[in-house]
């Protein structure tokens, strides 16, 4: 993406975020049941969508493309890493905002309902992915290892969801505390519009962040490559110096 392109993206993200903020805080009404706390949902739902589906989805897709011979390229490796970082940050944000929202609504900071628990496990899964990316290694070695871990995490996500869902429905505690009910898109009109606007704004923000994080990663890789070329030159120079000693015998 060109600099102009990313600048356009950045500005549209900024504008839509500003608009969202205004709509969320000023223009839209407080909820009949939740009061002003509902405004937190305009932050919570988009970050959740962004983290869980968009960024980890991109990470998984990019990992597949990296592993598949036909499309293998460092581009996908860097995209996967960048997207996962953004995802982890936003997922953390989702959990925190959800917790803050939960306090006035449910009276507790945390509860072991299906959604929250699965989300927490997902969070730790991707922390593991980021950890494996940080272990020093050659780029293609690290890339492949990370891609395989990303796929294993992706494979695990539905299993975790299934398990945790069953767990909570069996215990039948979920009814009052079911976040799903309260966050239902039975909200209409202005509130629905604000929510959709928020999702759009955050999506734009995601792509803008992705472009910049990718560029940063790319520059880091190029710096390494340059160091490699210097190392190659030095290595070969060893040969030239050492030859006089070896040539006889």
């Amino acid at each position, binding site marked *: 993406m060109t600099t102009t392109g990313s600048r356009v993206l950045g500005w549209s993200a900024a504008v839509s975020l500003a608009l969202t903020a205004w709509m969320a805080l000023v223009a839209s009404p407080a909820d009949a049941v939740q009061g002003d706390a509902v405004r937190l949902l305009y932050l919570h739902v988009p970050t959740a969508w962004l983290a869980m589906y968009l960024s980890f989805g991109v990470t998984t897709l990019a990992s597949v493309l990296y592993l598949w011979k036909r499309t293998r390229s460092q581009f996908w490796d860097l995209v996967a890493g960048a997207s996962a970082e953004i995802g982890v940050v936003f997922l953390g944000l989702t959990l925190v905002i959800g917790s803050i929202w939960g306090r006035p609504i449910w009276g507790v900071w945390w509860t072991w309902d299906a959604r929250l628990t699965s989300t927490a496990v997902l969070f*730790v899964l991707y922390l593991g992915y980021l950890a494996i990316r940080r272990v020093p290694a050659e780029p293609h070695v690290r890339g492949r290892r990370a891609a*395989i871990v990303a796929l*294993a995490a992706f494979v*695990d996500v539905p299993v975790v969801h299934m398990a945790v869902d069953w767990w909570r429905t069996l215990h039948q505690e979920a009814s009052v505390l079911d976040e799903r009910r309260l966050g239902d898109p039975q909200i209409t009109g202005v509130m629905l519009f604000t929510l959709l606007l928020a999702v759009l704004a955050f999506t734009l923000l995601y792509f803008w962040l992705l472009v910049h994080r990718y560029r940063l990663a790319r520059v880091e890789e190029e710096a390494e490559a340059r160091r490699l070329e210097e190392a190659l030159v030095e290595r070969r120079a060893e040969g030239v110096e050492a030859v006089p000693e070896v040539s006889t015998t």
Partner: protein
Amino acid sequence: MFRDAALVAGKDLRIEARSRVATNQVLPFALLVLILFAFALDADRGQLASVAAGMFWVTVLFSGLLAVQRSFAVEAGDDARDALRLSGLDGAGVFLGKAGAVAAQLLALEVVLAAGVIVLYDVDLTGVAFFALVCTLATVGIAASGTVYGAVAAGLRVRETLLPLLVLPVLAPVLLGAARASEAVLGTTSTTMADAWPWVRLLAVFSTIYVAFGIVAFGPLLEES
């Protein structure tokens, strides 16, 4: 592939027979964990019977981690990966062999641990065959996923801290499933057999997924450096 698996599993189990690390170290560790839980939960309050199944599986999980670490530590010398790759054995075969050896050791451990739980936590085991089924499925899942992530972490200097971080979130469903299913036959909770069967299915699904994943991914994972 199966020939190679049998060769590797045989080698790993022979090493265990000679060095007895699982019997001398992992087993006592597991029993110790059971005892520590009893301290933590204050044995007199009668809670132990209701948490017995959960405690059993948490202990198995931690022991499984140790078993996997050991499985990769025995690969000769400085670099855990070199000897395995140099042998020229098929990656999928090595995976099945190593995971199989870990599973065998874990199953043996579970027999002793079950006896330990029955005695120490004062519970009854009402369905031995069902419990054996749960144990087998869960153990295959633990061994398979542990071996996959063991390969990811093998040879890295940070592997002792990295392996638990990678494996435990993945094993969360296994813990959940195995504990809830076991409760039907172990301990005093209200879980019925009807409740337990969906969990058994979950364990079967998990195990199948990770065995398949390991067969495909283990070879490429070893190909580093």
